[in-house]
């Protein structure tokens, strides 16, 4: 059984079925891609996994335990972190503070902070060091004290990843991590994603529109169209799948 497993999940908004019978699995240390045309339901799948929505039918399990129906903060605490398609940083907080927020739920009690106990001091020092390390890891040290909204687009994408890593995840969900970045940044991002997987042993689920990037990066790819899984497997097999070609290019003219 895979570490993160969606089993036949369905979600409807009124009469519109956004996601139908979607099954998906990510194991520790695995890079899995989710692709599909616009509106195929990719981000909705992310929202199901992270608890923004609860599935109408189907189950989601993390390490064998049901997590569907839990509120988002509980799911994050269980070990699933995400980035957002339209970047959602804390715009007026510094890069460093953004990362600190990721650590916040495990940062010791509020009372300890108010009374300034020695234990609070120790925890504070440890977390500060971890946050600095994450900023270094994602090449953000020189922007440490700048408000998140003043960072370049690529830096904002990196900060979102740093912030997600601060929550101590086992599975990382990346929603178009390279969208709107330069080709050079895209290259760097790919290397970085591989490195994160290897270094932290993370399971990574990634939504991306750049076909070359996703084919090169992922071991397995799931293709969604109109809320349904139309193909699933190794990049080469997915690329050759006639249903996938049809979904992207339209049916063949005869």
């Amino acid at each position: 059984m895979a570490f993160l497993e969606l089993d036949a999940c369905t979600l409807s908004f009124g009469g519109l079925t956004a996601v139908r019978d979607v099954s998906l699995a990510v194991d520790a240390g695995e890079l899995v891609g989710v692709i599909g045309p616009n509106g195929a339901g990719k981000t909705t799948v992310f929202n199901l996994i992270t608890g923004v929505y609860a599935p109408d039918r189907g189950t989601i399990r993390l390490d064998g335990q049901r997590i569907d129906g839990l509120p988002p903060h509980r799911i994050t605490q269980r070990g699933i972190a995400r980035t957002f398609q339209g970047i959602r940083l804390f715009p007026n907080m510094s890069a460093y503070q953004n990362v600190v927020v990721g650590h916040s739920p495990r940062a010791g009690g509020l009372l300890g902070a108010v009374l300034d106990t020695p234990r609070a001091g120790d925890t504070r020092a440890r977390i500060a060091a971890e946050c600095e390390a994450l900023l270094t890891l994602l090449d953000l040290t020189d922007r440490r004290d700048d408000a998140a909204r003043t960072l370049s687009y690529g830096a904002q994408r990196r900060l979102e990843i740093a912030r997600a890593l601060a929550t101590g995840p086992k599975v990382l969900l990346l929603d178009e991590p390279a969208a709107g970045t330069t080709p050079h940044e895209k290259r760097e991002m790919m290397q970085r994603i591989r490195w994160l997987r290897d270094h932290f042993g993370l399971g990574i689920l990634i939504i991306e529109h750049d076909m070359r990037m996703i084919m090169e990066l992922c071991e397995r790819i799931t293709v969604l169209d109109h809320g349904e899984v139309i193909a699933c497997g190794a990049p080469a097999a997915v690329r050759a799948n006639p249903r996938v070609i049809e979904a992207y290019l339209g049916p063949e003219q005869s």
Partner: protein
Amino acid sequence: MSGLAHVARRNAPLALALVGLGVLGLALGRWLNGYYLQIVVLIGINIILAASLNLINGITGQFSLGHAGFLAIGAYVSAATTLGTGLTSAAVLPLSLLTGALAAALAGLAVGIPTLRLRGDYLAITTLGFGEIIRVVILNTDAVGGARGLGGIPTLAGFGSVYACAALCLVMLWRLVYSQRGAAFFAIREDEVAAAAMGIDTTRYKILAFVIGAFWAGLAGGLLAHFIGYLHTNSFTFLRSVEIVVMVVLGGLGSLTGCALAAAILTILPELLRFGAEYRMVIYALLLIAIMLIRPSGLMGGREISWPSWSSTPVR
């Protein structure tokens, strides 16, 4: 034990400052004339009110217009406590203040749980309604004087107790929101969905902000009651809530030192403008508009005036 000793050592300067304020208060009471002393003390009370509302409005980003309601609960409950004990010595003051503050905090919890599901304008309207309900209930409660007002409260509070409370309030809020865990309060203001995705229980933090804010507003109410010695519901109208909101906005949303500064300025300003007689409040309003045009994000614009090192390092 070494842990306790550490806490004592880290907080000793704070304790010393509080004692110092008490002594200064005694001295001021002897030398300063009543009119000036009253303004200075009211500044202290307004600092507590502005700082506590800042936690809710400026830092957590939940727009509340009901702060006068918590102020009223604290004022009336603490006054009733003092009058109930029949004591007139200052020893009863801490007990009364705490009772009033806890009653307000309880009200904050009761109001917060259902209303914090609402956002923006809706939350503002609901809290506004809550404040008015409190006022009308007190107005019709004969046990606390009703429309006649509640008089004969021993005047036990003065400069020392007010500024000791204000200092305690500022230090506590500062340590709370500039701790690593407290960064969650700002995060909720910035983006609630992203905050939840960081593992933050946003509802819990919003309620916590509401309860702590209400606690300090209630304490300010108790101080007010024991400073003036007379309470009437006219002092707790919707306009009082707006006044506190103005302090928070003028100081810069989210800046504790900024709102303390704004509380001082906005308390002194109407007094300085007395030369303008009937045009006083017109000038006051014009000045407010001018300040907001010159500094649209408040005096401090969300930043803080630097703070003594013993307050523990802010997350920067």
